[in-house]
């Protein structure tokens, strides 16, 4: 068969007659989030399983301080990135830039807070990743999250650079939205990590 007449068509399209499918970026990012959630779940399971099982060394209750302020920073950054996106949609470039920058600052504050906490744990309490089961699971879980925050901050900074150069327009809203989805995921993971480490674990 070398030539074909078009197939007999009785397609079912939506009421406007347009064949529309979900956005690739959103579906791709959602899939990545599902995969990442599985990785975090395994680290959380290890953390919970080993609670109370360390043979020696500092325990969570002895050394952990609840990072309320830095958590507030990170969770607020979800709000700021959300409104940044809304601003871009409405072509309010200066508002977008300001809110985007604020998101990065808040995320950076969170990282600073983590660094401060780790400094205190290592130098004041002698808790390292090799100390005991608590040390191993704590630094791994919080560290994995911090790694994802860092990757997010790098991507946010790249967008900031483009925005400062005037290159980001409402046309790019879709991609910004995909990146924001990642950032919301990072925040959601922190809610879980926070609950497991600082609430349940103590």
């Amino acid at each position: 068969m070398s030539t074909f007449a078009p197939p007999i068509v009785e397609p079912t399209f939506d009421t406007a007659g347009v064949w529309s499918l979900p956005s690739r970026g959103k579906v791709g990012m959602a899939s990545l989030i599902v995969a990442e959630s599985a990785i975090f779940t395994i680290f959380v399971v290890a953390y919970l399983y080993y609670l109370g099982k360390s043979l020696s060394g500092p325990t969570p209750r002895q050394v952990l301080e609840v990072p309320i302020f830095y958590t507030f920073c990170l969770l607020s950054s979800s709000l700021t990135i959300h409104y940044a996106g809304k601003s871009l949609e409405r072509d309010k470039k200066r508002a977008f830039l300001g809110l985007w920058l604020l998101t990065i600052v808040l995320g950076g504050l969170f990282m600073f807070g983590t660094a401060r906490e780790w400094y205190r744990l290592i130098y004041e309490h002698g808790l390292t990743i090799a100390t005991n089961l608590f040390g191993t699971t704590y630094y791994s879980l919080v560290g994995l999250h911090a790694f994802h925050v860092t990757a997010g901050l790098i991507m946010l900074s790249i967008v900031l650079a483009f925005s400062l150069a005037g290159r980001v327009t409402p046309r790019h809203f879709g991609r910004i939205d995909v990146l924001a989805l990642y950032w919301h995921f990072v925040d959601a993971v922190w809610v879980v990590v926070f609950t497991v480490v600082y609430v349940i674990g103590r």
Partner: protein
Amino acid sequence: MASDAVAISRTEVEDRPWVDTLHEWVTTVDHKRIGLLYILFALVFLVIAGLEALVIRIQLMYPHNDFVSPQVFNRMFTMHGTTMIFFFAMPILFGFGNYLVPLMIGARDMAFPRLNAFSFWLSALGGFLLYFSFLGGSGLYGAGSAPDVGWWAYAPLTARAFSPGSSTDYWTIAVLVSGFGSIGTAVNLIATILCMRCPGMTLGRMPLLSWLYLTMSGLALIGITPLSAAQLMLLVDRYLGGHFFDTQAGGSATLWMHFFWIFGHPEVYILVIPAFAFMSEIIPVFSRKPIFGYPVMVAATVCIAFVSMSVWAHHMFTIGMNSYANSFFAITTMAVGVPTGIKIFNWLGTMWGGRIQFKTPMLFAIAFLFQFLIAGLTGIIQAAVPFDWQLSLSYFVVAHFHYVIVGGILFAIFAAFYYWYPKVTGRMLSERLGTLHFWLFVIGFHLTFDPMHFAGLLGMPRRIYTFEPGRGWDAINLIVSIGAFIQAVGILVFVANLILSYWKGARAGNDPWDAWTLEWLTSSPPPAYNFASIPTIASRRPLWDLKHPEDPDSRYE
């Protein structure tokens, strides 16, 4: 509407320097080229891992044989398993998915072409790293070589104390890196299937191959990542002094087992679901009937994917879980047999009342049906936990899973080669060589893996570099080894067929099998852009509608 490629004269093609062609292939983002890269890469590793299997079988031909030392033997079975799973089976199935899915859903490429290329090269890097271990694995300690901890790398054997040198790290990092590549491809397949179907192709009208690759990719997202997580933990233990699996510090060896098998069991479904996909495309065409029970096939596959997440500890029935845990995993394991059986019955229902053509793809498909049936039944047998207390860790298990992976998955892959080779190359594979390949492989496969069950029943454990005479294992092992060589000859015939037919095979045309899905609409091989214009479809078998305009499928769905 012209869906044929524009003909390019041979002289125009041949004048390009080979470096340019190489560059084109190395930098390609075309799903068809990437698919072929995956497939070629996998075939190379099939041969390498096959040679490792032959070393194992030569060593085990006689009791107390000394063809290789125990150290070399342990590396051989570790590398054979790791290579076959991660560098043959995964890449070849992703390769077929890459090539076929966009064509079968009427798209021009995958959703993320550059991610596609990146994922392939990650897998390639992983394969290279794993084999570099033969050179680099001794590390600073002067100990080790290729990894020798088994493909499951159980703790605490993988701790620095018991595995000095870097051999274990080559295993960990190679598999970790290729795992990220697999996640990338899974993300790509999901986005492609959900977002790039041609007009009219609702989810209910996708080819079953597309549904099954969608399911497999979803399973990959949550099935592969637990292994990645566990491997990161192992690296923390080995390099940062962590204690995740350090039993001396109160850590748990069984935690590694749970994490590994939470990956390991979905992994085998990730491998078998594409095999099911090939069968669901091939059996209907060669029975001349549509697939029996399309909605049930979809439902059964999704059901299998979900239930498969709950059976993992059936690989751990001997580790001393309590009777309630053992019972739970017994029932879930038996339960997953139900939707799997339903699929076999539906393939039977497809052939029933048909007009079966025994071309080479169908020969392999029929062998698949019998062999997968047996494999599934030996799986159910092992789900009877107390029986598994005898069968686990013995050659019965080795026989069972090779029945699934070779007798099932590899046979399905062979069927897929014979079926889609004409589309990829424009030439038919030789039926004569195909039939020879088929019979050699069937005979070799059964000579090896049928008696192997009895070695297990007679008490022969796995992973032993030699065995004691007088246990009743001697003749069995000899026959098993002979079968392995016959399979090797079968592979040689297959490779010869692939190569010779590329130049000498009969010209295929667009649709040599009189099939019904969209890939047969375009030329063989397809042009880079796949279709001159994206088709709009109205049923599950658009080419049937074209060929039978008086009786289209769209009337019945």
